[in-house]
């Protein structure tokens, strides 16, 4: 947040999500603050798990314990819970990757100095949703065959033929358009909104405490307290969104592979 350095009340805006380039400006490899944050979080996640599982012991200790706890969360409460043991194991690498990448990037939103989620720009949610889209269609076609997969997705069993022209567009949109769209937008919107709220509270705090008249200082304290509470709330939302994103990925793959 640039509020403190610029002076004046910094009104949160869309521009928060399009900071200036730091490197390779104008190229496809342009790096700005948010891209940098993503890369740092990626290295942190990869590093943490590589260290945690460097020499895994039968009886886990310290950081291995923590790593296993985290991995087990995805394995048991997302993969196996949604898809069952066999398919859960099959798609575990994908789901684990999604969950920790999204969660780490989300977390950057409340990490001091980062202050913005790596997933608050559309690229990451979109790329992950596209991967989900490709994977669930691939899994569906592979397990049922193209024709049967399409039929199962588009034609609800028991609908009379004359209803199909009315019903099929809905199923088409529901399965092949709304799914990836909502997956992307849900994560993106949550992270953007969270960031904007935090910026609002903390820049208001900064303005009220340091620049507005003394009369407003108590309001600034209140604003800071709100910002603090909202930071805690944001922590919850970040975890929840990572969980939902990963869980829905599992659900979509699972739905594609079974006849309904």
């Amino acid at each position, binding site marked *: 947040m640039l509020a403190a350095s610029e002076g004046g009340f910094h009104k949160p805006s869309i521009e928060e999500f399009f900071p200036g380039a730091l490197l390779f400006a104008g190229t496809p490899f342009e790096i700005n603050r948010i891209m940098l944050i993503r890369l740092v979080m990626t290295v942190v996640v990869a590093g943490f798990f590589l260290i945690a599982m460097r020499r895994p012991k039968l009886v886990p200790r310290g950081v291995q314990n923590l790593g296993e706890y985290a991995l087990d969360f995805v394995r048991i409460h997302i993969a196996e819970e*949604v898809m069952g043991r*066999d398919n859960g194991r099959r798609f575990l690498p994908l789901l684990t990757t999604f969950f920790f990448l999204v969660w780490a990037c989300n977390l950057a939103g409340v990490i001091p100095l980062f202050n913005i989620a790596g997933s608050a720009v559309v690229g990451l949610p979109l790329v992950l949703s596209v991967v989900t889209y490709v994977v669930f269609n691939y899994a569906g076609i592979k397990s049922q065959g193209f024709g049967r997969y399409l039929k199962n997705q588009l034609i609800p069993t028991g*609908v009379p033929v004359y209803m199909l022209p009315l019903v099929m*567009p809905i199923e088409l949109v529901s*399965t092949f358009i*709304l799914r990836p769209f909502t997956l992307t937008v849900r994560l993106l919107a949550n992270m953007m909104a969270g960031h904007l709220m935090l910026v609002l509270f903390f820049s208001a705090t900064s303005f009220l405490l340091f620049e507005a008249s003394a009369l407003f200082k108590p309001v600034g304290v209140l604003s800071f307290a709100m910002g603090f509470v909202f930071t805690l709330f944001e922590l919850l939302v970040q975890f929840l969104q990572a969980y939902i994103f990963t869980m829905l990925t599992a659900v979509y793959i699972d*739905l594609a592979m079974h006849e*309904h």
Partner: protein
Amino acid sequence: MSDETDKTTSTGDGDVWRLISTLVAGPVVWGGIGYLVDWANDSRIFLPIGLGFGFVLGFYIVYVRHGRG
């Protein structure tokens, strides 16, 4: 964390998400069609009709798929 799942295959918990998706898609699709018709005819009536129609259809699909067991 300690409870391992015993099931080897899916239980179909995902149906709930599919249901929600369908309920949303109904109004979106038919509302969209209504909007296009309005746009083409310079009218204002087909968007709400489409929305309502799609809403009902969404429920119909959910009913057909789940309501009758």
